């Protein structure tokens, strides 16, 4: 799905990013992960949601990056933020305190109830593939008022059973999450390269609610490791607006240009102790 879709000239990543951006209401407070979530949030901020508040786990609150960060702690995030706080503070004072509206996550595996694995493929003791691990995801999944998940859909990633439960979605479904006392409502949408899955209102099992132009339900089912339910009012999402695509591509181009610059360090900084460049 890396190639351009049939109709217009856009990639699956672009479609996912634009679709994710559309889920964000202006003024919402988002706890943003790096990669597609960050691209989606910054696209939204440049289009319909200029007042979107972005919080990165590096403690940069209210960041307005001019290019996309490559890491969660790029200087660009600090330079454009309303404030920079410590990591313990951003997790305690913002996330755990219930100040975050939307958490953005991705994962290597997701199950039918929106539970996520970012830790390991295979057994923990003798892993086939060791993944990066928890990071901020378990607490984002617990505390953000709602969670958006962005990930590409395949039978290897949309699995009947997680190898490791890193972050809680709806647990076993049918209200188990809410009974456990989680303050956040859990994953409200899973945006994939085929469309959008949402939890069934009662069973909390993810079902296909929307597909991109040119996508078939059979293709989505083939990419899902469990028997995928389909909403009775399945929607076909509009193709990305040219303006959205232009904005996204400009953002990516500026990002590539900025990050390609070679780094040179002057070892004689002790001679020139530039005091405090704000």
């Amino acid at each position, binding site marked *: 799905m890396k190639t351009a879709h049939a109709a217009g000239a856009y990639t699956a990543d672009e479609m996912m990013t634009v679709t994710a951006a559309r889920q964000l209401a202006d003024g919402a407070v988002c706890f943003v992960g790096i990669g597609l979530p960050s691209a989606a949030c910054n696209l939204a901020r440049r289009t319909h949601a200029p007042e979107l508040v972005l919080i990165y786990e590096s403690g940069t609150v209210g960041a307005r990056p001019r290019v996309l960060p490559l890491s969660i702690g790029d200087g660009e995030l600090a330079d454009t933020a309303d404030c920079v706080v410590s990591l313990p503070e951003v997790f305690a004072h913002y996330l755990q305190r219930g100040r975050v509206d939307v958490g953005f996550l991705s994962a290597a595996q997701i199950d039918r109830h929106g539970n996520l694995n970012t830790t390991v493929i295979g057994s923990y003791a003798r892993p086939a593939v060791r993944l990066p691990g928890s990071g901020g995801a378990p607490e984002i999944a617990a505390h953000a008022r709602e969670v958006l998940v962005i990930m590409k859909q395949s039978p290897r990633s949309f699995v009947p059973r997680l190898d490791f439960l890193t972050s809680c979605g709806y647990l076993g479904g049918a209200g188990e999450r809410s009974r456990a006392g989680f303050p956040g409502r859990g994953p409200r949408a899973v945006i994939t390269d085929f469309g959008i899955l949402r939890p069934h209102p009662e069973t909390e099992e993810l079902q296909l609610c929307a597909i991109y132009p040119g996508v078939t339900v059979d293709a989505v089912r083939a990419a899902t490791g469990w028997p995928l339910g389909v909403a009775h009012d399945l929607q076909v999402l509009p193709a990305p607006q040219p303006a959205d695509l232009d904005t996204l591509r400009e953002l990516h181009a500026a990002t590539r240009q900025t990050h390609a610059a070679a*780094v040179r360090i002057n070892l004689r900084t002790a001679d020139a102790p530039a005091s405090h460049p704000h």
Partner: protein
Amino acid sequence: MPLLTLADAIEQHVRDGQSVALEGFTHLIPFAAGHEIIRQGRRRLHLIRMTPDLICDQMIGMGCADRLTFSWGGNPGVGSLHRLRDAIERGWPQPLTIIERTHAEMGVAYQAGASGLPCGLMRHYADTSLDRVGGPRPRLTCPFSGDSLLAVAAINPDVTILHAQQADEQGSVLIRGITGAAREAALAARCLLVTVEARVERLDAPLNAIVLPHWLISAVSIVPGGAHPSYAAGCYPRDNRFYGEWDAIARERGRFQQWMQQYVLASRDHAELLRRLRIAA
């Protein structure tokens, strides 16, 4: 606070078998200090770092550590840490015991350590697989609300190593920009080593700046570029290109060892390493 060369600071303060936290969140990662530990051949270290990053990838791959406490072990924006994976997946160059936490837990653990408390608290609602594999994660009941809370053991490293922008004549250190849990790790430590970009007469820090007073610091070393390929706000940017290239260097054992030999071990110090990498003239 004595001013030492980095080699002397590591020589005098870092011992085989100790727990060593190297903090700095994407920003201000103390690479020069990590390289010096590799050069001096420390063994059986318990490394502590929220995001092990390339620095722990290198130290683990060079056999300095047999234990790692961490919360996210990837190459940010790139992919895997291949040396970390090789140690976990195949025990090369030696088995690595991992103590795995979440970012929020590490934050609470450092904060408790910095506060002289044996543990800290956080909210927790349902077990994850980490509760199964990560050792005991005991709960405490809030005596006021009845809520069940997760108790997190404090982290008090034997040594914490940070990189920062400036030290003044007394050895007080100014840190500017993203800190992650660096300050908490510093205050939690039994011994605190800091490398800085530059020494200045006075810090002229704005009110409410993050300053570590000289009397909390065991040694300061002046190491310009000491965070490369991470960055130092106001001094130089993150070397994203190097982070990208590392993926290919570290993917295979032989090439990794050759690279470490050619660059880190063959360089007397960090300045020489930066010149070999053509980062500095």
